[in-house]
Every structure is written in structure tokens, then in C-alpha cells.
């Protein structure tokens, strides 16, 4: 029985358990007119039987699937002949992969030795046993739950309270997933990053001026010694984000001011959703647009002006990223400008200020904390933006502030280091996790500050 069919069987069993529980409750009460004697309505008795039938079996099912493959692998490895087991970890790993490939029926590279075939057969039989055992154990557990709870049904059983309690626990469990996700991110990135810092000292990573993550495969290879000084990568990220913010903040802020202070209702109803379309366009589309249209345009314009512009200039990527962020800045600023009480504006008007003076000297200073928070969120988004820079910015890590040259960013490096086949013990792939850790920490700090500012500001006028 495949896991999918087993799952469906389990669900059917739960449905059956619900039906059984309901009928039993009615039977215990006497007949349908007597259900008033029950503590809860019959559906709750059905639900409690179904829950006891389904949940323990489901938990076991998930745990079994999660650990099945690693346990089987351990058993197979421990039964391997001595000479194979004494290999290095990497060779053993390769061997196990070969075995798995044989089991699945993939094409195996190299010759299949008898030992390998024997191990694969062993693996296969263990897998079959495990599958059968899983089906038997899960179904009997479900049946057990069903039968035990069914016998417990009586008019005094507080079924509704029990069911509601279970549901409440499920709700709590769902709400903690956000915390587990954060912990998962931190642990997974941190673990690999620490392995990286064991090879490359953290000071070299943070303050080194050269980045060329290609490692030599053989010792005698030239020119690929691997240098992991991330300063050029940070600088490139900062440069592109700065260009993006130079585009997004003035345009976004000014359009928010116009929409909330000057525009009439009709104009606002048309222009606001149109600008927000910009936020809904996938970043891969922006990346394609930047690489295909904007970058050649900038290079040609630069050529006319006598400037030497790289075809993957920071300017093109930053410009398009700025366009992407405009609606983000504009809708957040719009919220905060609207939150400024009308009484402040009326006060300024009554002193004889013009509209623009009111905006510049009263509304904007009042909304400033919120706008700053919004801009910080936008910066964090610019730093973490991936597809535009992967498609439009370059790979060469240059230590430059010239927007017409090629620079690279943290996200570009993560993608190039991790896409394709990887070995998980070379500093090259681990470097991606170190960069990821840094990216996470920086955006986390920006987000926390921004969210704090925004939240505090919202309370101020509420």
C-alpha cells in the first residue's frame, strides 16, 4: 500500500468513525427524540470518535514517513561487509546513493558490484517490510481508537468540551508554525554557516576585500585558490539598493502626496490601483525587462555620451528595482499621510499656509516616523530582492561605487553558488549559507526596527 492510498484509507476510516460515534450516541440516548438526555449533541460524539481514530494514527504515520528512509539506510550500512564500511564518509555516501539509485531503478554510474546488488536487495526488502508494517500498525491503531472511544460513549460523556479542547490545541499548534519557521531558518542557515566559518575565519569573510569563490578541484590547478572576502559583495548590494531607493523614494513619496492631498476621488480611484499593478508583477518579469530593454538602452545612451557602460551595469538593475519598489513606498506613505488628523491641516490653513506649505511643514513632519519605517521596509526588500539582480546584474565582484560598472550582490552569489549540483562539504557551497545568514540578520534588524517604528506611530494617532 503506498502512503497516498494509506492516507486515503485513514481518512475514510475517520469518516466511518464519525458515523459510528453518532449512531452510538443516538442509540445510547434511546432514540432520536431522546437525544435531549445526552450531554452534547450527537455530532460531537461522532467527532470525538473520529478524532481519536484519526489523530494518533496520523501522528504515527507522519513520524514513520519522516524517519523511515534514514533508519533503513542505517540498517543497510550496518549490515554491509567490513571492507566497505571502513571507507571514508564521502565514499560511503556515494555507495549508499548508488544503492538508492538501484532500488529506484535509475541509471547507475559505474559497475554494479555483487556487494552493491546484495545491499540494494536488502534495502528493497526492508522498504517493503516497512511499508507493510506501516499499513498494519496505522490501521490497527485507528481501529483501536475507534473501538475504545465508542465503548466510552454514555449520556454523561462531556463530548463537546473534549472536542473543543482538541480543536483549541490544533489552533494553538497552527499559530506556532510561524515561530518554528523562524527557528528553522535560523538553525538551517546558522548550522551551515558555522561549518563555513570553521574553514574560513569570520574576520576574513566580513572584512576581506576579494571575492572569488571558485575552489580548486585539484591541488595543481591555477588561478582558483578561492577567496572569501565579502566586502565587494556587500558594496555591490548597497550600491544597487541605493540606486533603487533614489528612484523609489522620491517618486513613491510624491505620488502618495499627490494622491492623498491633491487628487480628486475619480483620479485616485484609477491611478492608485494602476500603480499597485507594479507591485503585483513577478520579479522575474522585471529581471527580463531589465536585461532585455533597460540595460541595452542605458549602454547605448552612455555610448552616445561617450561613457563606457558595462552591459550588466548596476544602474540598470537598480533602476528597475526602484520601479518595483515604487508602489511599496507609495502605499505605505499614503497610509501614514492619511493617518495625520485633519485638525492639523486645518490649523495650518487657518494660519494662511498654502497647501504645499501645509504638506511640507505640517503633514510630512507629522507622518515622518511612519514614512521612515516604510522606507526601511523598502530597503530590506531591495536588499533581499533576487531575480532582478540575478538576471540584470553581473557576477564579477568589483570593489567600486561607479554605477556604470558591473557589480554583484549577496542574493546573486547565493543563487550562483547553490544552483546546480553541489557537494555539501566545500566552502564554496557553505559560503552561500554564510551569505544567507548575513542577509537574514540584516533584513531582520531592518524589519524589527521598521515594524517597531510603524507600530508605535500607528498608536500615536489612534
Amino acid at each position, binding site marked *: 500500500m503506498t502512503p497516498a492510498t494509506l492516507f486515503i484509507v485513514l481518512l475514510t476510516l475517520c469518516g466511518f468513525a464519525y458515523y459510528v460515534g453518532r449512531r452510538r450516541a443516538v442509540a445510547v440516548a434511546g432514540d432520536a427524540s431522546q437525544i435531549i438526555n445526552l450531554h452534547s449533541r450527537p455530532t460531537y460524539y461522532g467527532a470525538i470518535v473520529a478524532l481519536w481514530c484519526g489523530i494518533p494514527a496520523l501522528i504515527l504515520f507522519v513520524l514513520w514517513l519522516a524517519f523511515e528512509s534514514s533508519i533503513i539506510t542505517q540498517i543497510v550500512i550496518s549490515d554491509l561487509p567490513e571492507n566497505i564500511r571502513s571507507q571514508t564518509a564521502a565514499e560511503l555516501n556515494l555507495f549508499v546513493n548508488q544503492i538508492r539509485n538501484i532500488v529506484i531503478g535509475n541509471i547507475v554510474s559505474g559497475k554494479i558490484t555483487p556487494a552493491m546488488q546484495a545491499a540494494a536487495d536488502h534495502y528493497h526488502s526492508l522498504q517493503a517490510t516497512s511499508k507493510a508494517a506501516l499499513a498494519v500498525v496505522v490501521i490497527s491503531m485507528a481501529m483501536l481508537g475507534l473501538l475504545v472511544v465508542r465503548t466510552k460513549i454514555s449520556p454523561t460523556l462531556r463530548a463537546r468540551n473534549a472536542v473543543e479542547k482538541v480543536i483549541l490545541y490544533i489552533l494553538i499548534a497552527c499559530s506556532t508554525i510561524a515561530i518554528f519557521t523562524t527557528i528553522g531558518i535560523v538553525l538551517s542557515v546558522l548550522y551551515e554557516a558555522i561549518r563555513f566559518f570553521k574553514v574560513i575565519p569570520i574576520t576574513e569573510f566580513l572584512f576581506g576585500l576579494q571575492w572569488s569563490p571558485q575552489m580548486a578541484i585539484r591541488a595543481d590547478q591555477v588561478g582558483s585558490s578561492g577567496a572569501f572576502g565579502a566586502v565587494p559583495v556587500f558594496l555591490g548590494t548597497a550600491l544597487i539598493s541605493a540606486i533603487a531607493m533614489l528612484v523609489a523614494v522620491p517618486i513613491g513619496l510624491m505620488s502618495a502626496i499627490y494622491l492623498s492631498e491633491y487628487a480628486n476621488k475619480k483620479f485616485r480611484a484609477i491611478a492608485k490601483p494602476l500603480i499597485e499593478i507594479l507591485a503585483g508583477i513577478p520579479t522575474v518579469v522585471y529581471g527580463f525587462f531589465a536585461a532585455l530593454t533597460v540595460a541595452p538602452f542605458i549602454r547605448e545612451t552612455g555610448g552616445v555620451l561617450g561613457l563606457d557602460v558595462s552591459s550588466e551595469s548596476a544602474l540598470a538593475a537598480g533602476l528597475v528595482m526602484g520601479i518595483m519598489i515604487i508602489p511599496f513606498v507609495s502605499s505605505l506613505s499614503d497610509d501614514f499621510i492619511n493617518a495625520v488628523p485633519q485638525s492639523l491641516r486645518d490649523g495650518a490653513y487657518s494660519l494662511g499656509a498654502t497647501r504645499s506649505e501645509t504638506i511640507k511643514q505640517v503633514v510630512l513632519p507629522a507622518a515622518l516616523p511612519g514614512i521612515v519605517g516604510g522606507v526601511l521596509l523598502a530597503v530590506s526588500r531591495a536588499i533581499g530582492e533576487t531575480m532582478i539582480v540575478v538576471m540584470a546584474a553581473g557576477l564579477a565582484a568589483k570593489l567600486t561605487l561607479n554605477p556604470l560598472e558591473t557589480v554583484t550582490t549577496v542574493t546573486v552569489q547565493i543563487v550562483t553558488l547553490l*544552483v546546480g549540483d553541489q557537494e555539501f562539504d566545500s566552502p564554496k557551497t557553505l559560503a552561500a549559507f554564510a551569505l544567507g545568514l548575513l542577509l537574514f540578520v540584516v533584513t531582520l534588524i531592518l524589519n524589527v526596527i521598521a515594524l517597531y517604528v510603524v507600530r508605535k506611530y500607528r498608536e500615536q494617532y489612534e
Partner: protein
Amino acid sequence: MNNPEIKSNNNKKRPERTLDIVNRGLARRYQAEKRFRFYGLMAIVASLLFLSFLFISITGNGYGAFQQTYIQLNVFFDPDHLQQDSLATADYQGLVKKSLRAMFPEVKSRRDKRMLYGLVSKGASFQLRALALKNPGIIGQTQSFWVPADDDVDMLIKGHSSRKVPEDERRLKDKQLAWIDQLSAAGNIKKKFNKTFFTGGDSREPELAGIWGAVVGSFLTLVVTLILSFPIGVAAAVYLEEFAPKNRWTDLIEVNINNLAAVPSIVFGLLGLAVFLNFFGLPRSAPLVGGLVLALMTLPVIIIASRSALKSVPPSIREAALGIGASKMQMVAHHVLPLALPGMLTGTIIGMARALGETAPLLMIGMVAFIVDIPGGFTDPATALPVQIFLWADSPERAFVERTSAAILALLAFLITMNAAAVILRKKFEKRW
């Protein structure tokens, strides 16, 4: 009110009043006002210009891919070539070559022949094979077919590559151009609707590449995302909004959710790579893993939207339900949830639209592989529509530029449909209490 300084001048001049000072500056201030207003308008115009420029550039590049150049061939299904028992492996390429030679008998030298064969796509032989397998009775007959032309021919017919370029810089040589002219004079070459683009999987040959495989991959991924993130998101929102006590623990959850909504998507990709692939050993490139990662990513969006939907249900409804003896759980399940559901669904659709356009985390978990087959299940290797766009954007052939733009148009069409559905849903069910 007179200025005291002027007053001390013993009324020699007419005293200047504040109003005069104000009046003097008025023209300048109105000017500034006008300028400021103009800047605001310009900002909006600029963003709308960017938007229209983007759409025009993508549409202009992409609409051509909905058509494809086809060449008509008269193919004789030679019984000597095609034995009944080996129909699947017969040399269909040979048949195509033979009929091309029959059309241009004057072509003799080896090099010229190879150039002639280059006019027709490699997909032509697959087309013949499929036909022969389906209908073996065709063997021994001559039939005329429209087969896809090579992408270079396609680009020439569509006017994307120029004939004026010197011959050695051109993909198509002078002789090939002459043959193409001969074909089009005879009406044997023409543009037709490009069905392959909507039904095919990925291919290295632009004329055979389609988006269907990627669309199916995206669909499977989104199904996993929806199944996981909608119930969990709604449950979390219900707990936080209706049941949770105000304490440090729920504060922590709240900060976490708000923060996760702003974490870069690529970091979720790293999480998927380290946890789902390396720790749990789930298959690479599978929609299942893609769906898991995207579910974690959209969860905060759905939770935040669901909470605001729950907040907008007035307290009187809750009090009425509690007042007639409902338990808290019954109050939520029977009264609050149904009223908040449209708002939750709107938020979910918007979250799904975001997930559909997401590329970076999928790159991390290996959904960038070159996959020709249409995925059939949640653990088959697959790719997604935005990733397909990314892959095609990297391809050097000119014809892929057109196809990339067309794939973008398809993606945007899906997104617009989803967002329109969300807007309609909101309009229809929005209630002002």
C-alpha cells in the same frame, strides 16, 4: 496692525502693513505651490509610464510567438524504410530529408544538403512518427504535411533577422534564403497558430518549446501550497484573534509573523534546501517541496489578511451568539468564521498570486532543471512557469526572446485573472457594518 518700526518714521511714508508683506510673497508662494503639485503629478505619470513601457515592451516582443512558421512537405511513407515491427524506431528523419531533396532536386553537394535539411525543425520527424504509429495504414502513401520550420527560418519570416547583414554573420546563408523565397513563392511556407507553445514541454529547440509542462508544474505546486497554507493560516488567525490571551508568548508569535512577511524569499529557499532536501531527504525539483516552501512563505500573508477579516466582524455578533448559550468555539465556527470567510479567501487568492510569481526559492530547491516531460504527480521532477521564464531568458537563440515574452504574457494573464477574482469577491461580499 502697523509695524512699530515704520510707525516711528513719523508718518513720512504710508505705513507698510503685514498684508503687504504677505502680498509681496504671494506670487512666489503660489509658484512654489504649482511646482510642488506638478512634481506630484509627474511622479504618478512617471510610474504609469514605466508600467505602460513594460507592458508594451513585453507584448511587442511576445505576441509573435503565438504564431509559428510551417513548411509544407510531401512525404512518401516508404515501405522499405518502415517495417511494421519496428515502426517506433524507424528512420523518420530520413523520410523528411528525402522529401526535401525531392523538392529541390538541384541540390547535390553534401554541404548544401545539410543546409537544406536545416530549414526544417528536428520536430518534423517526431510528427511523422506519431502519425505512423497511430495509423500504420498510411505506409506506402504520399501525404502532404505542414511541419514546423527551424527557428532561424521562423525569425526570418517574422522579420526579426535581417537579410542585409553580411553572409558570414548571418545564421541563414544566401542559398538558404533563395530556397525560402522559392518555397514562399510556391505557397509552401506560411505562419500558423502555434499550438505547440501551449501544449508542449520544454525543449532546446525554440520551435518545439512550450509552456504546458511549466503550467502543470506551477499548478501542482500551488495545490500543495493552498492545501497547507489556507487551513493553517486560518486556524492561526482564529486563535490569535479570538482565543489568545494577551501575553508575551502571543506577542512573540505576532512579531514573528510580521517579520516573516518581510523576510527575503530566497531565505525561504535556503530553508527548503537545508531542511526539506538535506534533512528529510525529499526529492529534488519536486512540486511537493516547492509547495512546502511557498506555503511557509505565503502563510504570514494569509494570517495577516485573515486577522483583519476577523477584526472587521462586529462584536455584537459574538455577543449575540454567546448570549443565547453558544460556547466560544461554536460562536466562532457558526457565526464569526462564515462572516469573515470572503475576506480570508480574498487574502488567500492574493497570497496565491504572489506564490505563483515567485522564482527565487524554487531555484534553491532545484526546480530549475531542464525537464521535457509533463509532470504527472507531486513528486515528479517539474519546473514552474516563472522559472521557465528565467531559463528561457538565459537561452541565446533569438527565438527564445519571443517565447520568453509570450510566457510572461501567459503568466501575467494568470495573475490578472486571480487578482480580478479577488477584487470581485471583495466587492460582492464586502459588508459595511
